[in-house]
Structures are given as structure tokens and as C-alpha cells.
């Protein structure tokens, strides 16, 4: 099901943009969300960002749980835990229309996501 708003159908700020094919929460997805958040101006657009953050939240939680299950010596889960914390905070702040504060949380999530991706790559 595609969900769009009543604004410009060609502008992705006026629709829910999320690739359900992603199995993990990716830095690219968070960067895209941040870009749309920075252009979000209306109440309706805020609702779409909140929906996208719900999608990000559930992937972040799944990523953390996967790490916990797979964790062993030298495989810290605090990075994924941090991503989840910041994504959750961003979600709640968008709900309060505090877009700048939400963007700060998303940037923090992006940094940790990049670190976690690097750590996972090095662990292979």
C-alpha cells in the first residue's frame, strides 16, 4: 500500500517513503529521512515523517535484538542500542513538531549506524 499526501505527488516530502525491502536499518535510509525532515513544514508532512520513523524504529529494534542474540566476545551491542535510542527520540520529537531537535537525534543515529556498519564489516 502506498501512502501519499494531498500535496505535490512528485515531491517525496509529501508521501511516506520507506523501502520495505531493507532487512536492516541502513545509513542510506536514515539519511533520506533526515533530508525529508529538513524540508518538512506542514502538519501533514510531519505525520509522514512520524510514520517513517515508526518504520525505522522497528528495524532498529530488530537490529539490536539480532546483535544481542549473536553477541559474543568483542561484539558490542551498545552501537545498535544507541541507534534505537536516538531513532526513538527522533520519533517522539517529530510527534511534538520539534523538527530541529528530531534532526539532531537522527544525525546521532546516523553516526552510530555508520560505526555499527563499520564494526560489523571488520568483524567478518
Amino acid at each position, binding site marked *: 500500500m*502506498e*501512502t501519499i499526501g*494531498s500535496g505535490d505527488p512528485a515531491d517525496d516530502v509529501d508521501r*511516506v517513503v*520507506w523501502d520495505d525491502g531493507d532487512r536492516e536499518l541502513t545509513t542510506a535510509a536514515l539519511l533520506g529521512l533526515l533530508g525529508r525532515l529538513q524540508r518538512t513544514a506542514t502538519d501533514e508532512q510531519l*505525520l509522514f515523517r*512520524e510514520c517513517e520513523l*515508526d518504520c525505522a*524504529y522497528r528495524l532498529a529494534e530488530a537490529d539490536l535484538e539480532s546483535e544481542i542474540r549473536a553477541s559474543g566476545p568483542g561484539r558490542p551491542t551498545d552501537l545498535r542500542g544507541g541507534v534505537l535510542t536516538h531513532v526513538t527520540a527522533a520519533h517522539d520529537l517529530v510527534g511534538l513538531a520539534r523538527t530541529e531537535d528530531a534532526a539532531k537525534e537522527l544525525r546521532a543515529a546516523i553516526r552510530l549506524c555508520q560505526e555499527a556498519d563499520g564494526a560489523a564489516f571488520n568483524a567478518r
Partner: protein
Amino acid sequence: MLSAEENAYLTRVGPGSPMGELFRRFWMPALLSSEAVADGPPVRLRLLGENLLGFRDTSGRVGIIEPQCAHRLASLFFGRNEQSGLRCPYHGWKYGVDGQCVDTPNEPENSRMRERIKLRSYPTREQAGVVWVYMGPPECSPLELPQMHWVTAPAGYQHVSKWLQSTNWAQGLEGEIDSSHVSFLHSTNEKYSAGFHFPYPTLPPEVAEFRAQHKGPVDGAPVLTVKKTDYGMTYGARRHRNDEFHWRVTHWLLPTYSLIPQAMNLGTNGRCWVPIDDEHTWTFGYISRYDRPYTGEEIAVIEEGAAFPPRLTRGTYRLRDGYLIDTSLPVASADNDYLIDRDMQQRTNMTGIWGFNEQDRSVQESMGATVDRSREHLGKADMAVIAARRTLLQLARRLEAGTEPEIAGRAEAYNVAALDVATGIGTLDELLEAYAMQLGGIGG
């Protein structure tokens, strides 16, 4: 997903709560007119966490008042409804529909105590077979009832029902505006049909003909357009059907009304959820025709319980704290596993449960009296639910900060219609413009 704090803010409706205060700014259905008989038994109620009593006096006026006698707090449910008032059987104190004490027969003859005694009462209006109540500050009282078609249509053009749901109000509303569950919860044995099994014994002939004319491959991946409006939200679900689009335009109107099109735009139907307390809700169901009154046969079909209302029986219900309310109770409930038939579930439909609302309540009530939204995992299909919650939270916060909900005073903004149409028009805004006359005023 909502944090635990936001979930509590959303769901708590008792006196003094922010969401309860928001609900109080609107006229709300409280009783069916048929529940209050002139000089008949009073009706025990609870609304927004307040225990109340409804009764109709000799002249037909309905009062909603505090349920206990001011003298020694005996329940006025046991009072005698007589000669324009309700008389407590304990010592004879009598009250009018406005709560004013009009007689204190056990007091000395020259006593004027009764002039100083007035039970809490709330203003009522009666229209469309419903007794409405306003529980907010008098200075904020909206002048008119919400001007939805089922409210303003001539008597007989609508059918209204009422029943108990054993959950917080928000679960009922969210189930209503969540369109994606229809293809599953209400589906037949055809695998995840985007159509649904409408278990009426016979469809109205014009509906059966319409469906036969518009058969075709069903698009299971609709495009949902969400449009925030001043009265709440309009959402259009667009599906491909043959070489055109099939649109269903539905509305959510503050605080908890839905308006859903009937096939062939014969009229609209919907539900609203009136909070009893944090864990119980009255669902009011309404259906109205644009062209004529319902026949007796049609009403009998509606009241069979296959859709809305469910199968009902009249009785009393003991709330968690022991207070009794008088209400219509669903026959299929958690107490009997909604009369689930596992053989039916294997052979006929997804649930093995017979009626539409029975199917809805089976899942909504299974989530718990107040679902823990902090444990949810929402996706794109939950957009309408996310939007409704957020809108209500914002309005409650603004009211707490001193800004009254302007929509509560704009009864005319509720004069919108739902739409079910096949057309080549591809966007919701163009559709709304093309059907503006049919749809009434679509707010911006």
C-alpha cells in the same frame, strides 16, 4: 508507536485529564432515545469516568444527572420516575431533569432547603434518535450538534444503535480508520481477498446488482491518500479496477466519528466511540440513506447483527470498580470466545467468527483493555492510525495550554459525505473537486 507517557495522555479520559477535557468540548451521544421512556426506569450511565443517571420525565425531557440523592447518597436508579421528576424512595426527595431538588417531604413544611440543593447535571439535546450530552464548560458549549447527514436527515432515514466495547475508546477508533485490516480480518476463504465477506443473508438487490456489474480483478495494493482537514482527516483508497479507478473516500471527524460510504452511494454509515471510562467504551453505530426512510424489513436485517450493530441483548454490566451500568451487551464476547467456530475458520472465513463487529471486537478486546502502544511495530499501512492519534494528542495539548478546539463550534464542518465511485480521476484532490456537491464541504 507511542511512549508510555503519550499512551497514557491519549487514553485517560477521567475528570481533569487532558483528553477527557478535549472530549468534553464536543456534544456526544449518551443514550438512544429508546433507552429513556417517559416516567420509565432511569438508566445508569458512566461517561468520561463520571457516574451519571439518565431519565425521561413526564413531558418527555431527558435529564442526565448525578446518580445519588443529595440527602444520604442513595442511588436514584431505585427512584420513582413520576410527575416530572425522579423521587428518591428512601426519604422522598425529588429532582427535576436539571438536577434541581423540587421536593423534600421529610423536611419541615416551611423548609426551603430544597431550593439550595441541585445535583450535578449536564445539558442534553435529542435528535436522530439519540440523546446528546455536553459535559464541558457552559461558556464553550457548541451551539449546534455536528451536522452529519445521519444527524440532520428526517426521522426514519437513519438507524442508530449502541453497544458496549470492553476496551479503551482509542482501540475502537483505530480499528475503524485502519483500512488495511479489512482484507484480512473480514476476508472470506478466498486468500486475502481485498473484498470481504458481508454476512448478510441477502444483499439489498441494488447492492448485489452493483457488485455484479463491477466485478473484476481486485487490486490488493491500493494507494492511500491522507488529507488532513479541519474536522480531522479524509482518506481516499484508490484501487485499479478494470480500466479505471475505484475510489472509496472515508472520513474521520473529531473526536471519534467515522463516515464510510455505502455501495452505490446509497448513503453513509459509521461509528463513534464515547468513552465510559479508561477501559470501557460505548460504540454508537449509525447508517443513513439519502433517498428515503428505511423499511421495517431493512431495519430487521440491520438488527440481525451481521455487521453493525452486532447481535445484542439488553442487560447490566459491572464495571471494574463495581459500578453497574445499563446497556446493550454483545452476545458474542470474550466470555464465550466470540462464539468462534473453528470449522467455519477452516472453510469459510479468516476468523471463524460470524459478524463484522464481532470480528473487530475479538481482536480489539484481545489487545487488552488499554493496549500498550509502546510495544507496537507500526508500518506504512498504519498511516491513518498514526495521524488520528497525533491529531488528538495535539488538540489535547493545545487545550491544556489554553487553546480551545475551534472545530467543536463549527457544526457545519461536519456536513461531509463519503464516496464510493468508479472513475478515471487519479488524484484525491481532483476527485474531491469533481464531486464537491456530493461531498459537502471538504475542509482544508
